[in-house]
């Protein structure tokens, strides 16, 4: 999470903003929640899954969590529902299912 204090951003004047919109830290795209763009979510079937990790490699948003070299869950705060993982899975273990209207995970 961000270490850059922007809590009073709304009161900032132009001279308070860092030069040229530089953010004085890196890796902050994790703070940018993109899961709300999704209309379908990936669902993995643990029985069919061979744990080849191809989906984990291919996900353009690094939104597939893995632990001990095994795929665990989808990071639904960042998964955009592109379906790349489902398409690439050699075991057809991922299905894309339509999202409902409320997205509790994103909040």
């Amino acid at each position: 999470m961000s270490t850059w204090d922007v809590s009073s951003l709304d009161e900032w004047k132009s001279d308070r903003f860092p030069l040229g919109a530089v953010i004085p830290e890196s890796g902050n795209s994790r703070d940018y929640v993109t899961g709300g763009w999704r209309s379908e979510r990936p669902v993995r079937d643990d029985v069919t899954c061979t744990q080849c990790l191809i989906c984990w490699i291919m996900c353009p948003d690094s939104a597939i969590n893995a632990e001990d070299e095994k795929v665990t869950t989808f990071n639904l705060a960042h998964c955009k529902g592109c379906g790349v993982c489902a398409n690439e899975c050699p075991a057809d273990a991922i299905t894309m299912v339509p999202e409902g209207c409320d997205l509790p995970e994103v909040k």
Partner: protein
Amino acid sequence: MPTQKTVAATGNTVVAEAMRQCAPDVVAAYPITPQTTIVEEFAAFVAKGRVHTEYVTVESEHSAMSACVGASAAGARVMTATSSQGLALMWEELHIAAGMRLPIVMANANRALSAPINIHCDHSDIMGARDTGWVMLFAETAQEAYDNTIMAVRVAENDDVLLPVMSTLDGFITTHSIDRVELMDDESVSAFVGEYVPKYPLLDLENPVTHGSFAGLDGPFFEFKKAQREAIERSRKVINDVGAEFSKLSGRPFGMIETWGMEDAEVAIIVLGSTAGNVRHVARGLRDAGMKAGVVKVRCFRPFPFAEIAEALLGVKAVAVMDRAESFGAEGGPLFLEVRSALYDSSERMPVIDYIYGLGGSDVKLELIESVYKDLTDIASGVEAPAGLVYLGTR
């Protein structure tokens, strides 16, 4: 005091020389007439080891400026050069360089834009870039092109500015004519420009930063633009200070405008770039014949010297603006619009006539300039000024 060596050289040669003396870390450039010899001669300096620059050959100007933006964000001192269609191809990166507050210095060989295809001098290319947020300097001579290039580095890298700067010279007329130029010794230039210490270098791994981020609807995009405006306003003082410091070193005067005969001028021509010399030459002759003719040469177009121009024109009865670029459908060319605006707040508003001249390198004969002064004298003595702009010397 620096040692100065007098040489006979083209504008492009001395711009390449100035670039070598400023020792940029990175130059990314693509050749285009009439800028080519700048980057060609600079490439030769790199090949011979006379400057230690990472020279990036790219496949287009779009890539050239993109590479410059990346290198500058990484923390390098970056310089490049372009012209005409090349500058036009850089359009989106020009805004990015300014918005990211990257102090890139670029020479532009002023040239017409197609169509029809034309490789000769006018200011259509550079005027198309006037709202990109770059500081813009104009050179009359090869000497000024050399001086401006060196000063540009100091202006761009100044903490109060941190904006990219374009140092422009007129295609062929200044880029390719051999001129008398005084070059400073390497040590003096290097001491003058100093070392560049970047504020937020991407390559500082101890202090990682993010460049090129997003500022959307609720984001502070508006405030960043305001900060950019504040920076270019602050650059006025910096340009004058750097100019004064450089003048002391070089013995050559610098001002955002340069006036000739304006103390008691009744008629005056305002002009940018190489034509200023011809205008002065004509004015001198007319003065000898009794006409109170004056000249205002604009050396810095962005930020525009409104106050200086309004002050220089006090007491003048009729003014001609010479525009080497069109702004189709506007009331006049780009320089005219600025000058008329500068006079709005002035206590005196005299007739101002816009002359569009020299597009695509068409000849600026001395008789044409003389005819402008004659028109002005008539207008000053009560003859009605032409309604709308005048194309000077077209068939």
